[in-house]
């Protein structure tokens, strides 16, 4: 009796497990695609719909989409790539494609393009920005394609402008104009609490390296040696520090922390009149249902010899080499890869994800008739990505922020802060070289 019961249980388990693998029985090659639209996300249905459309358009391959939240995605993909269990296709950061290509974890897209004779969704490189593709090129071959594109711009509140008799034409274009207009909006209560600011060069998506680029400067030279404590660097840093010198750092910190703790965007809550932000702010305002009247323009540049540039990046679309990819898997993955980069799918992705995608014509069609999106897309042509520094991959984040905050807080003088930061990078460079000599 026991044996009969055991056999019955084994049979039930086998049938159940086989049932789970329904697609395998259909003899279609399974392709996995990791994205950032998990179940419950507003974009989940549309991304799933695009995958379903592809699956129904042919009967050779079956794409299984797996969505993770943005915050979870990076750990998952990094671990999967490291353990050679990466999906067939996934997204990553475009600025460090070369490091992955060098490690041999990415498939060569140029080779796949050369071998592609299907005539379906053929990749047209003219539809993608060379500046982005440069980041995806290793030893003259493409190892990824730009999937999305971001830009940064100055958002200004037209209702607040109107209050002070300003119009869209008064939107600042230079640093001095920015300073003059910003001061008009500052409000400080009797107890010292700042309740409104015109602008602050440390808020939103501003970065020190962004301001440096506009002045023709950078953190590193061409050989990636840190060069950030020249008098010119100091001048930019002092401009940032002096911008709101009417207020103490404590007042500004309190103002910033109040925004963060209340969970409000200082721009949408009309606590700042102008802010530098990426295209995500458009989406935030749109989805929040806010009726704020605003405009977008290029980030103001230095009065003399200023360069029109902003920090823009984007996700790369990558095909992973796990060492055991079959020809059918590679062919299927590339077929879906091209589909994701095709014009109609890029438009659909832009609409569902709220991102600016990488396909030039697709995005021109997508933004047509929307002046805000048109302005944001125009900035993509002036965007530049940060350089990948192997000895300090997070050079702009944790490495620099330590010194930047000390300088802003007045714990370090700008000179001492820049020198300390440079020494920190030099030490990291030396240690990296010791390990890789």
């Amino acid at each position, binding site marked *: 009796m026991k044996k009969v019961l055991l056999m019955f249980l084994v049979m039930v388990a086998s049938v159940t497990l086989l049932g789970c693998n329904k697609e395998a029985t259909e003899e279609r090659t399974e392709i996995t695609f990791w994205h950032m639209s998990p179940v419950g996300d507003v974009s989940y249905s549309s991304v799933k719909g695009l995958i379903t459309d592809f699956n129904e358009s042919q009967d050779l391959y079956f794409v299984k989409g797996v969505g993770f939240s943005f915050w979870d995605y990076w750990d998952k993909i990094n671990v999967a790539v490291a353990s050679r269990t990466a999906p067939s296709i996934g997204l990553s950061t475009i600025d460090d494609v070369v490091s992955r290509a060098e490690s041999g974890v990415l498939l060569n897209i140029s080779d796949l393009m050369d071998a592609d004779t299907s005539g379906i969704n053929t990749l047209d490189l003219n539809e993608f920005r060379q500046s982005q593709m440069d980041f995806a090129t290793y030893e003259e071959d493409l190892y990824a394609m730009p999937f999305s594109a971001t830009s940064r711009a100055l958002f200004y509140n037209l209702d607040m402008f109107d209050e002070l008799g300003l119009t869209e034409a008064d939107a600042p274009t230079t640093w001095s104009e920015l300073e003059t207009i910003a001061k008009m909006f500052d409000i400080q209560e009797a107890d010292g609490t700042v309740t409104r600011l015109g602008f602050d060069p440390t808020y939103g998506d501003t970065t020190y390296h962004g301001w440096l680029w506009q002045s023709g400067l950078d953190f590193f030279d061409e050989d990636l040696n840190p060069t950030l404590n020249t008098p010119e660097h100091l001048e930019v840093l002092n401009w940032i520090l002096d911008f709101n010198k009417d207020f103490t750092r404590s007042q500004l910190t309190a103002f910033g922390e109040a925004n963060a703790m209340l969970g409000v965007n200082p721009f949408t809550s009309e606590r700042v009149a102008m802010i530098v932000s990426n295209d995500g702010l458009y989406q935030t305002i749109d989805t929040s249902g806010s009726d704020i009247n605003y405009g977008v323009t290029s980030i103001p540049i230095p009065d003399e010899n200023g360069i029109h540039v902003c920090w823009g990046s984007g996700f790369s679309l990558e095909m992973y080499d796990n060492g055991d990819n079959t020809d059918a898997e590679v062919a299927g993955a590339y077929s879906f890869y091209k589909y994701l980069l095709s014009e109609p799918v890029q438009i659909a992705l832009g609409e569902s994800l709220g991102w600016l995608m990488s396909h030039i014509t697709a995005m021109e069609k997508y933004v047509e008739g929307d002046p805000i999106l048109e302005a944001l897309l125009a900035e993509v042509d002036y965007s530049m990505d940060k350089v990948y520094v192997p000895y300090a991959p*997070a050079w702009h984040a944790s490495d620099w922020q330590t010194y930047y905050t*000390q300088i802003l807080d007045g714990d370090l003088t700008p000179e001492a802060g820049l020198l300390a930061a440079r020494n920190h990078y030099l030490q990291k460079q030396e240690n990296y070289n010791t*390990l890789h000599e």
Partner: protein
Amino acid sequence: MKKQSIGSIKQLKKTENRMGYLFASPWLIGIIVLGAFPILASFYISFTSYDMASAPVWVGLKNYIILFTNDDVFWKSLWNTIYHVLIAIPLGLIVGIILALLLNNKIRGMSIYRTLFYLPCVVSIVAMSLLWLWLFQPQFGIINEVLSPLYKLFNMEPILWYQSASTSKITLILMGLWTAGGSMVIYLAQMQDIPKSLYESAEVDGANWIQKTFSITLPLMTPSIFFNFIMGIIGGFQVFTIAYIMTNGGPAQSTYYYAYYMFDKMMSDQAMGMASAMAWILLVIVLIVTMFALRLNKKVVYLGEEG
């Protein structure tokens, strides 16, 4: 007949052993695959340069040498952690014991008080950190609001708490005391175990509350105090989450603890080899400190009357 029965017993033992291993196998597989393998792998990786994408490259002791001789942040993070352990552990013990002594009384609603003090232990550390961020906010937080009469009285500038490098570490330590209710429960359990006769004898001899506390309660609580001390040391060296959420390691890296730096080495610098070396250094430090602490066991812990 005798031989047969011996054979049967041996057979039975073998069968029992097999079944034993079979039932224990999930745990054994778990500890080998999920425990032992990663530990051994990290030991190997600590002697390599490994960016988690390419294959690890053997570099010998270079990771260790760099950390000890040419990494300022390593020493800074280690000092921050030692500072945290030196202050937070004794303070946590004292607060836990005081709470337990206060709550070891027979008054109405005591179970409610005990629950209230234990409640913070079941609150998510992320939620707790965000809550305390509000409370400690120097410009509009409630703590500085409450203290403002004192600031005026002593003509002081308000304390900047987590915003200042000089007070940030102690701010996080004070915040951590909110969960002292966890150790309090252990102390209370041990207090309940102390024979009433000891207190009665002391009372007959005219001992007051302080004398009873220092001569009976605290000596008999030393096993649980010691347990919390050891666990505190081990946990203290791994402090990470509160700094990650509340201060991002700042200001001026004053709350950049060892585990935080190790995390950044792995996630930001993609230097898994170096991060593994840091993990092993931490293990050795914790082992040495715990070993010394355990040596105190016989000297300070009451283990019952011999004979």
